């Protein structure tokens, strides 16, 4: 498919299918990047890449995982192109727009800070499960892991969040 002269029908189909998934795409990208500006860049580049290869999408039911996979690769490309500096978790939390966080309770803000602090290996499967409704098998496919490894990461992710919010130590 050429992106230079899209037909009105192609545009309409792309809009109708991808538009409602923009929130999913943005939140996924945000939790990968932990940065709103990067997340918006990833979303835009992912949509552009999706548009260019839209013809290769056979099953419309597979659109959401297809888009999330594209976003994941876009994010990875950014890391390849540019070595992002390691940033402090507290600084990341401060990057949150106060206006956007104004309605959130202290408990939610503390949880958000704890999620920020998770390694991506733990953060990504958690986002896919809790926010995207992915099954263990779907996460395994998306992350190229075994289902057992996914379950272990999910368990450990929640352990770390629980310890961060409620104290105590991680269970074996």
């Amino acid at each position, binding site marked *: 498919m050429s*992106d230079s002269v899209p037909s009105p029908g192609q*545009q309409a189909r*792309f*809009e*109708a299918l*991808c*538009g*409602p998934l*923009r*929130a*999913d795409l*943005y*939140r996924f990208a945000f*939790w990968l990047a932990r*940065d*709103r*500006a*990067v997340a*918006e*860049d990833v979303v*835009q*580049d992912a*949509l*552009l890449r999706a*548009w260019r290869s839209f013809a290769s999408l056979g099953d419309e*039911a597979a659109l959401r995982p297809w888009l999330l996979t594209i976003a994941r690769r876009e994010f990875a490309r950014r890391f390849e192109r*540019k070595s*992002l500096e390691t940033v402090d978790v507290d600084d990341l939390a401060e990057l949150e*727009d106060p206006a*956007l*966080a104004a309605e*959130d*309770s202290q*408990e*939610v*803000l503390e*949880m*958000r800070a704890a*999620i920020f602090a998770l390694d991506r290996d733990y953060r990504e499967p*958690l*986002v896919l*499960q*809790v*926010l*995207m*409704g992915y099954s*263990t098998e779907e996460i395994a496919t998306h992350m190229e892991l075994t289902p057992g490894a996914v*379950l*272990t990461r*999910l*368990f*450990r992710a*929640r*352990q770390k*969040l*629980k310890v961060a*919010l*409620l104290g105590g130590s991680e*269970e*074996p």
Partner: protein
Amino acid sequence: MNCLDARRALGADPGRRTPELEAHLAGCAACARHADELLRLERTLRRALEVAVPAAGARPAAAPWRAARPRTRWLALAASLTGVAVLAAALWALYPREALASALVGHMRHEPQAWQTAAPVPPGALAYVLNRAGIALAPDAPLVSYAQSCWFRGWFVPHLVVQTPDGPMTVMVLTHEHVSAPTLVDEGGYRVLIVPAARGSLAVLTRGPVGAERIEAVVARVAAAVSFTG
């Protein structure tokens, strides 16, 4: 199942309750407390992950490292990016509310298993779905034979099937979907009634031509049984 197995299963997915896990929780107070604690954390986790999504096209100031992007690449992408952004913005702003009924029917087609049982949902599983949405159901509500937390138009919503004298009916509690007046739609073999609720709206779907007044009666009963806790 022992306590270690139970806690690993709960930690991996607090919402997934197998019969073995339910049996263990019924007989182990410590693990039951742990499960409750995880469910509470899960609600907070969900709310924390749901960061606000900026309107399409309303980009914040660029991060400093973005300034280093080669201008040629920007120029090459500008037209396409603008087009996609404008299209997405238009769609985001104008997505027709009238499509709600169609979206509900589309969602139902992806969960045909929802209709296949009349047995009550285990209390723990039902509580998880309701808690996740910040709602509670009074004991005199119709029997719930299916309960899932489903992703629907950008939100997780409770997808319930209740048993009624007219057969199973699907109930979706749509706290983020607002309608100004009751809407009855027949589409794809389903009859859909959407009514305003204390928060958002309630939708009830039936298969086949159930009388509107019968659906309204179920909606009224469910509406009276639902309370918002979150």
